[in-house]
C-alpha cells in the first residue's frame, strides 16, 4: 500500500508527505496540470484540515485525577509501612475534621456528616426525597467548618423558599449539635416537585 501509484504514476505517499510535512512537490510542473494529482491533493488537504482541527479541539479533563493519583500513592506508601499523613501532603484532599483534645484526637469523615444530613432530611415532611442526579449530599470540610450542598425533591404544595429555610436551619442545628463542627453554608438545589408520599 505504501507504494500505491496514481493513474499518472505519482506515488500517493509523496503527495501525503507534501501536505502533512510541507515537503516540496517532487514534480511541481506535472502536479499543476495533472487532474489525478489535483483531485488527490484536494482529498488530502481536506483530511489534513480535519487533523489540524482535531489538534485544536478542547478536551475536558475529568475531575478528580490528581486526587485519585495521590490517594493511590499514599495508600501504597502506607502499605509499605511508611505512614504519610494525607493532610501533610495535600490538605485539599483531606475529607475529615480532626478534633484535638488533651487525651486524643477525634476524626469525623465527610461521609459521616452526609449520613447525618440524609437522615434528618428524610424526617422533614416538606421534603419529598433527596435528588437523583450526581452527588445529592456534598459535604466539604475545611478545618472545623462544614459546607453542605444539597439536591432535593420538594413535596408538592409547599412554598419552596420556606422549605429551603427549614432545611437549612435543620441542617445547621443538627450537624452543629451532633458533631461540634460549625456549618458555614448550606446550599440547596431544588431538583423537582413530587406529589404524594415517598
Amino acid at each position: 500500500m505504501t507504494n500505491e501509484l496514481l493513474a499518472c504514476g505519482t506515488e500517493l505517499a509523496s503527495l501525503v508527505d507534501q501536505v502533512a510535512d510541507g515537503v516540496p512537490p517532487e514534480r511541481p510542473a506535472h502536479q499543476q496540470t495533472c487532474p489525478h494529482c489535483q483531485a488527490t491533493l484536494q482529498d488530502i488537504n481536506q483530511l489534513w484540515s480535519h487533523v489540524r482541527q482535531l489538534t485544536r479541539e478542547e478536551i475536558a479533563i475529568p475531575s478528580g485525577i490528581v486526587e485519585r493519583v495521590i490517594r493511590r500513592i499514599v495508600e501504597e506508601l502506607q502499605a509499605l509501612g511508611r505512614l504519610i499523613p494525607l493532610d501533610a501532603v495535600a490538605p485539599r484532599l483531606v475529607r475529615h475534621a480532626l478534633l484535638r483534645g488533651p487525651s486524643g484526637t477525634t476524626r469525623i469523615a465527610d461521609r459521616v456528616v452526609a449520613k447525618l444530613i440524609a437522615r434528618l432530611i428524610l424526617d422533614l415532611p416538606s421534603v419529598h426525597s433527596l435528588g437523583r442526579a450526581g452527588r445529592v449530599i456534598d459535604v466539604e470540610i475545611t478545618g472545623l467548618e462544614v459546607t453542605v450542598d444539597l439536591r432535593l425533591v420538594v413535596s408538592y404544595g409547599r412554598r419552596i423558599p420556606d422549605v429551603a429555610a427549614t432545611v437549612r436551619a435543620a441542617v445547621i442545628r443538627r450537624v452543629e449539635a451532633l458533631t461540634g463542627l460549625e456549618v458555614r453554608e448550606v446550599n440547596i438545589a431544588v431538583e423537582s416537585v413530587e406529589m404524594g408520599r415517598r
Partner: protein
Amino acid sequence: MPRDDQRAAGGPAAGPKEPEFLPTAETTRLAAFETFVLRNQAVVYRVALRILGNKEDAQDATQEAFVQAWRALPSFRGESSLETWLYRIVTNRCLNLLRSRHSAEPLSETREALLARPNHLAETRSELEALKDAIVRLPPEQRATLVLRELEGLSHEEIAHVLGTTVPAVKGRLHRARLELLHAMRGWR
C-alpha cells in the same frame, strides 16, 4: 469548644509536638508530585483519549500512568525531557491495554463490526467524528505514532524514544497510518 482545637491544628508551632505532621523527604516529594500531576494531567489525558478512543479507559490510563511515574521517578536520569518521559509512560500504558484487549477479543472482529456499520449512519456523522473513528481503527502502534506526531507535535526522534524503536520505523508507521486514514476518510464520502 472547636475554637481552641482549631488553633492547635494550625501548625507545628501552635500545638504540641506531633511527629506524624513533620514533613519528611517523602511528604515533600509527594507534595511536589501533586503539582506535577496537576500541571501535566491535561497532556497525559489527551494522549490517552486519542489513543484509546474513550473517556473511561483514558481516565484509568492517565491515573495509572501517574502512579507508575511516581514509582519510576527515582530512576529518571534525565536522558530525555520529563515531558517525553511522561509521554513514554502513558503511551506504553495505552499500548499494553490495547494489546491485552487484542488477545482477549480478536481485533479483526472489532474491525469487521466497525466496518460493517451501515452507511446511512456514517453520513450523519461529522467528518471530524469520522476521523476520530478512523484513528481508533488504526493498529495500535500506528495509532500511537500518528497521535504523537500529528496531534502532539513530537519529532521523529522523540517518538522513537517514546516507543522504544528506531526513527526509520517511526517514519514507516507514520506513512502507513497517514495512508490508511486517507483511505478510510475517502470511504466515508
